[in-house]
């Protein structure tokens, strides 16, 4: 039996992927929200690559950093919530891709770059940020929230 054009297995594996990524985004956001001392400035200062200068100047601007920090925290939380409950998933996915690409560009695992912040694995060119971004693109092209998710109620209106 096909549901929304997917087999049962296809549908639920896509939903599980959506939930996992949503959970990850939500927790990344909540942890930062709960930590009064958190700021992205340390991460940005540690930037390497083509856009390092841009990220560093962002970090040097205290008032801009306040906005960046707030957008990052709430971006992560809202994207996470959206992916989990399946509400406004399309814009959430593309927002998530933008954030992940930013993280990737700030810390690209290219030959010759070393970062102050240690990573838990070994990466060359491809890292988990990029993989998560690619997974989000897959979810955008294979939508599930109009079946499993609140988006289906939007569709019916």
């Amino acid at each position, binding site marked *: 039996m096909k549901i929304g054009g997917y087999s049962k297995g296809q549908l639920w594996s896509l939903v599980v992927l959506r939930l996992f990524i949503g*959970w990850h985004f939500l927790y990344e956001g909540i942890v930062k929200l*709960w930590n009064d001392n958190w700021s992205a400035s340390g991460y940005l*200062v540690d930037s390497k690559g083509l856009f390092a200068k841009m990220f560093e100047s962002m*970090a*040097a601007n205290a008032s801009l950093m306040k906005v960046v920090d707030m957008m990052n925290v709430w971006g992560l939380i809202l994207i996470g919530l959206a992916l*989990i*409950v399946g509400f406004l998933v399309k814009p959430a996915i593309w927002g998530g891709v933008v954030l992940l690409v930013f993280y990737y560009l700030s810390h690209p695992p290219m030959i010759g770059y070393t970062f102050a912040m240690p990573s838990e694995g070994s990466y060359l060119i491809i890292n988990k940020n990029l993989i998560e971004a690619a997974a989000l693109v897959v979810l955008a092209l294979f939508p599930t929230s109009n079946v499993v*998710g609140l988006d289906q*109620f939007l569709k019916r209106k």
Partner: protein
Amino acid sequence: MKEDNNELNRRDVLKGLATVPVLGAFWGVAQTKKNKDSAVKEQIFKELNIEAAKPPVSGSMEGNPLRIGIIGFGIRGEQLLRAAGFATKEWKEEMKKNNLENPKDLRLKEFLEQEKLNIKLNGVCDVFDVRAESAIEAGSVDGNKPKRYLHFEEMMASPDIDAVIIATPDHWHAPMAMAAAKAGKHVYVEKCMTHKVGETYDLKKTIEDTKIVFQLGHQHRQTQSFLTAQDIIKKNVLGHVSLIQVATNRNDDNGAWQYEIHEKASPKTIDWQQFLGNAPKREFDAQRFFRWRKWWDYGTGLSGDLLTHDYDRINTILKMGIPDSVMASGGVYTHIDGREVPDVFQVVMEFPNYTSGTSQEKGKEKGMTFLYTSTLGNQYDRGTLVMGHDATLELGAQLTVMADPRSTRYKEMIESGLIKTDVPMYSYNPSAKGVDAVSGATAKYFANKGMMYTYRDGKRVDSTFLHIKEWLSCIRHGGTPSCNIQQGFEEAMSAHMATASLRLGKKITWDHEKQRMANVSEAELRSVGMA
């Protein structure tokens, strides 16, 4: 058909809401984790009870402007005047350029935003014409042009000066500070407070007799993390402290005092006789003028120049005073360029009766060694460690406390896994939200030690600015600055004991009752120009 639709709708609705419970699960797990983390943190915090101390309150800077004179506008003099609110055009242009190249370098912006101290620079005294003119240019603000005094005594006699900042070579510190005090002028003087042993007593007496406001230039007294460290000692978080490790690590010419010799330097532009002062007479020598720290006649070597910073940092926290004995050794090993003062230098100070408290049974609370080691041939940062039976404090602009695996006080908390001995049980970073740009190896060296910047309400502030402000506040409203003459006496005497040990080749002991070196004669001190 209608029923079918309803059936379908119900199923669709259920499917639509199928993932919502995941949110509930998420919230439950996240809360559990948060509660567990914060319970551990709170339990440790409750046990340690460390309070990040509030900075000292300084009074208002309103009223008639205080009239300041500066003596000595070399590298440090320029920094001091800038902290007081006066920068040269050259510096401002350089900082502007630096900021364009590196947007993280905000020194110009910070200088311009620095609180105004309501002072007028009325007098400048420097024996080198170029520097005197440069100071006049920096101090010419709002239509007020500082007067140049060719001899410091003319400045002392002037009714236009309320207070002086002294940033000359060490051999001039005490004579000038005493002359200023006797003329009723308040004094801010750079370290090492004195150059010789005898004048240390004379200066102390003069300051006590004249009751002027005296501040010694150990600006780290203003460092926020050091105030917090005082509380750590007070609360006996570390247990019996038995060893202090401090170090100087530099590896560049600037750090080794091999400063640039100005192209305009000549007997015509430099009042050489006045520079020499009480030092032995000799022919003009630009090397000795610009790189005076390399010779005993004018400087105090690593002992007075950098050991004093570390000694006073620890004395701020532990208040251990002058050591019972000092041994020193060293040599010229990294900069063989005709210098007299060693560039590799080690000092061991003993405090057999010192106690900061204990968690162990009585009889195990006394005795401490202060170990200073330095090289000007390697800049690996060895940090500052205050090592106690229960924990180790690492001290800089930030501070961390690590529990000792064999601690008595934390034994149960370590066994229960509450305290882990491989991660800090307490860390304090007043700049948690700030971003710093500290340029140059020497600047980094000082910044790591909390000597350049500190933080007020999360904002980076030049600690020298705060140190000068405290001095000015005491002049206006009364009170004693944090690095007063007693602290200065302890600083200078401890440094002189280290220098005497090196130069006389013996262990120097201190007689606490008579307040003098117990085993050194006047003749011995005279033989090395330290009497």
